[in-house]
């Protein structure tokens, strides 16, 4: 695909180099299909590998989900399809599924010895393209290539449609993947013919802004502009055409905006819907702690970073979040990022880029250093837990430790601390389980409880592993009806997109799981910081992830934890939406920008990286990926600085809004993710 031609801020999500002729020989297709198989059982793993090799596929096996994610993040275009077991000790297979769907948008096949209908259904709802019952026979594996082809075909179709559709509001995009799916995937494995067509098309229409455009990558900046535009118009009135005009980005088409808007709305809706899931706060709290942390480790890290970067999150909180997110390799440590502490976490000014290295340290040193400076590496997971206890209403910290995508949304929502947050949640919640507790309607919460609340949500979802521990201090938050998803949406969401959000489907299974992942995004600031940081580090996979995180943060400002894996744009939006109310938009957008930038530019991956790094470090040293991925662990240039998004502004805005920074419950989804993204 043609690389971005530098038009505006639209980056062409071209998977340059993704298609390596040597990787897959079209003529011999499906031979050479690059498969990643994940299963904790050694016997099954080896047998599967053997069978896949017998099918002439290029197999990579992996016995841990976090390692798998790292692999995927590092080699964005390195795989064509993923096969994963459902029951794994370090991470729930469905969570992994969501992450992959969000970040890489690869087809994922689930397998299990469990053939119960509800489990199979879960696979469907989370976006698995197939479900195999163990023992898996070789016959079943022979045809898995169809999923790869089908996905590509759909993506192309999308692209075609969007390209050919000049005017007319196309709110509905057939598939979200097209624009949001990682570019890597797009260019990755395609039949040679398709690829050629694609290239030809792009070349032909390169100069035509309305014709088929190369995939648009929603950078943080771009997203920020988007959110700003939407806020300006009012979520209810935001139509793609007007948004496009307001944004005034050359090369961006109405379709791009429409699709992005759709995702954004979905995201918001999901956020608001998250709260519904959690039936009881108590449960959620407890479980949230564990769950969230595990799942969103990567996300949390990101969020926190981001938030921290922006200086919004208290250093401690950030640390907590991070710790929470990152340090959850097993998703058990679930250090609930105390909402309260979040403030601290995010307050650091110096972004701590070094996720890899510093993470542990940061986390451990729970000093209330301004996280804004960097990722509070002082917080250790344990500390985080402590922080959590202190529960200072960070308010902004939407550390939603949604371990599971599904849950996350609720968590985020719950925080409802600030209306703005709630709004955001509403918007994003969209399709997802609107678990958001009527965060919007709970002004009280915003003060800081929000942070705590977020945790609550997570708890509910703990089944997924969301464990929001954070909720504690702000127990008041807990009381939030976690299930008020709808409320959030209806709140004065400036974005008013709740209803409109149809499918901000973040990619793949994002919907549910995302929310849970958003954990650490205590508040907007936090998440953004994290993202920023991450962004700087490595833009890879996290993009979506981070974005999601951010949203969570933004949404609840504190609460958004969940796996807002919603497409980056959505995420950012979330954050933005919240900011809208209080002018945080600006900040949010900054964060979002940071996030996006990380997201969109695969190279940037900072946000991601940060999250990853954080996660990696905290979670699991074995995760080699992390070490690798965090190139500058030492160089911490922390993402913040690069973001120049005014994270600090955002953070401060968020903080102000909140009246307190809710501890970013950052569910850092550390579990397993040593990498950075996809929390939980």
């Amino acid at each position, binding site marked *: 695909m043609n690389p971005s031609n530098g038009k505006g801020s639209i980056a062409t999500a071209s998977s340059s180099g993704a298609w390596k002729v040597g990787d897959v020989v079209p003529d011999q297709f499906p031979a050479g299909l690059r498969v990643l198989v994940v299963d904790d*059982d050694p*016997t*099954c793993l080896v*047998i599967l590998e053997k*069978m896949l090799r*017998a099918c002439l596929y290029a197999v990579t096996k992996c016995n841990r989900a976090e390692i798998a994610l790292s692999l995927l993040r590092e080699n964005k275009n390195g795989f064509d399809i993923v096969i994963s077991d459902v*029951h794994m000790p370090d991470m729930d297979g469905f969570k992994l599924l969501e992450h992959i769907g969000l970040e890489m948008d690869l087809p994922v096949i689930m397998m299990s*010895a469990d053939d119960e209908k509800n489990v199979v259904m879960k696979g469907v709802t989370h976006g698995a393209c197939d479900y195999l019952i163990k*023992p898996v026979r*070789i016959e079943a594996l022979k045809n898995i290539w169809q999923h790869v082809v089908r996905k590509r075909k759909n993506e192309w179709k999308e692209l075609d449609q969007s390209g050919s559709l000049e005017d007319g509001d196309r709110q509905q995009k057939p598939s979200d993947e097209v624009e949001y799916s990682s570019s890597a995937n797009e260019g990755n494995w395609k039949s040679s013919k398709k690829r050629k067509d694609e290239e030809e098309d792009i070349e032909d229409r390169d100069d035509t802004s309305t014709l088929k455009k190369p995939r648009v990558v929603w950078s943080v900046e771009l997203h920020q502009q988007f959110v700003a535009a939407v806020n300006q118009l009012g979520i209810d009135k935001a139509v793609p055409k007007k948004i496009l005009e307001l944004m005034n980005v050359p090369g961006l088409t109405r379709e791009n905006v429409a699709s992005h808007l759709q995702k954004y709305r979905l995201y918001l809706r999901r956020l608001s819907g998250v709260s519904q899931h959690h039936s009881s706060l108590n449960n959620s709290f407890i479980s949230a702690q564990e769950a969230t942390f595990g799942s969103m480790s990567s996300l949390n890290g990101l969020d926190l970073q981001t938030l921290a970067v922006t200086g919004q999150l208290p250093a401690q909180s950030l640390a907590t979040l991070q710790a929470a997110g990152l340090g959850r390799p097993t998703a058990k440590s679930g250090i609930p990022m105390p909402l309260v502490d979040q403030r601290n976490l995010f307050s650091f000014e110096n972004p701590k880029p070094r996720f890899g290295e510093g993470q542990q340290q940061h986390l451990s040193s729970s000093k209330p250093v301004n996280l804004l400076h960097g990722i509070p590496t002082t917080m250790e997971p344990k500390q985080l837990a402590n922080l959590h206890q202190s529960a200072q209403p960070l308010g902004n910290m939407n550390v939603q430790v949604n371990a599971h995508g599904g849950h996350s949304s609720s968590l985020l929502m719950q925080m409802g601390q600030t209306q703005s947050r709630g709004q955001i949640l509403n918007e994003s919640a969209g399709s997802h389980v609107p678990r958001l507790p009527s965060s919007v309607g709970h002004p009280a919460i915003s003060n800081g409880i929000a942070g705590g609340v977020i945790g609550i949500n997570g708890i509910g979802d703990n089944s997924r592993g969301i464990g929001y521990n954070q909720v504690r201090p702000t127990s008041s938050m807990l009381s939030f009806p976690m299930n008020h998803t709808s409320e959030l949406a209806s709140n004065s969401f400036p974005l008013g997109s709740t209803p409109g959000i149809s499918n901000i489907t973040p990619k793949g299974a994002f919907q549910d799981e995302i929310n849970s992942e958003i954990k650490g995004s205590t508040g907007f600031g936090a998440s953004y910081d994290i993202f920023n940081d991450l962004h700087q580090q490595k833009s890879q996979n996290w993009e979506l992830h981070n974005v999601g995180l951010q949203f969570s943060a933004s949404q609840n400002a504190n609460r958004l934890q969940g796996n807002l894996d919603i497409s980056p744009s959505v995420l950012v939006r979330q954050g933005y939406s919240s900011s809208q109310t209080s002018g945080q938009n600006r900040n949010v957008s900054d964060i979002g920008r940071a996030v996006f930038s990380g997201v969109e530019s695969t190279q940037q991956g900072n946000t991601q990286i940060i999250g990853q790094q954080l996660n990696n470090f905290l979670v699991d040293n074995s995760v080699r990926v992390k070490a690798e991925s965090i190139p500058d662990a030492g160089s911490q240039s922390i993402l913040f600085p690069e973001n120049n998004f005014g994270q600090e502004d955002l953070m401060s805005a968020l903080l102000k809004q909140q009246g307190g920074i809710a501890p970013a419950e950052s569910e850092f989804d550390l579990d397993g993710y040593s990498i950075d993204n996809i929390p939980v």
Partner: protein
Amino acid sequence: MDKNHLQHQLDMKRSLLDQGYLDEQFIQLEELEDDDNPNFVEEMVTTFYANSARLLQNIEQALGSRPIDFTKLDNYMHQFKGSSSSIGATRVQKECTLFMEYCEAANAEGCIRTFRQVKQEHASLKTKLEDYFKLARQGGPSAGGQAGR
């Protein structure tokens, strides 16, 4: 290779299949064997037994704790069952299923009883397979592969 020997091996396999100790999955594994991996099945079985011992240990422990955590038990057994199914250990799988049913019903007595059966089947299959592979090895380097065809 001695024809009788090979026949003997085939008969043994047939018998294991008929008695339900092994199923089609085992045959598939044998079919995966090739010159590069002539003892693939044996290696897999060895891996399985090494890993399953650990899983059984977990279950044993969980069964010994009070109060019994049936969810955990169910999870462990699920893992064990999945692993067993990968080598085609049918009888073992059946006991696993039964065990999981008792878990769902929170029937401790049933679980304990069934677990004993699981271990029994697990051990008995191990012995039979050991004999089988010994025979296969005696038959020649690719005896296993040939027997599988």
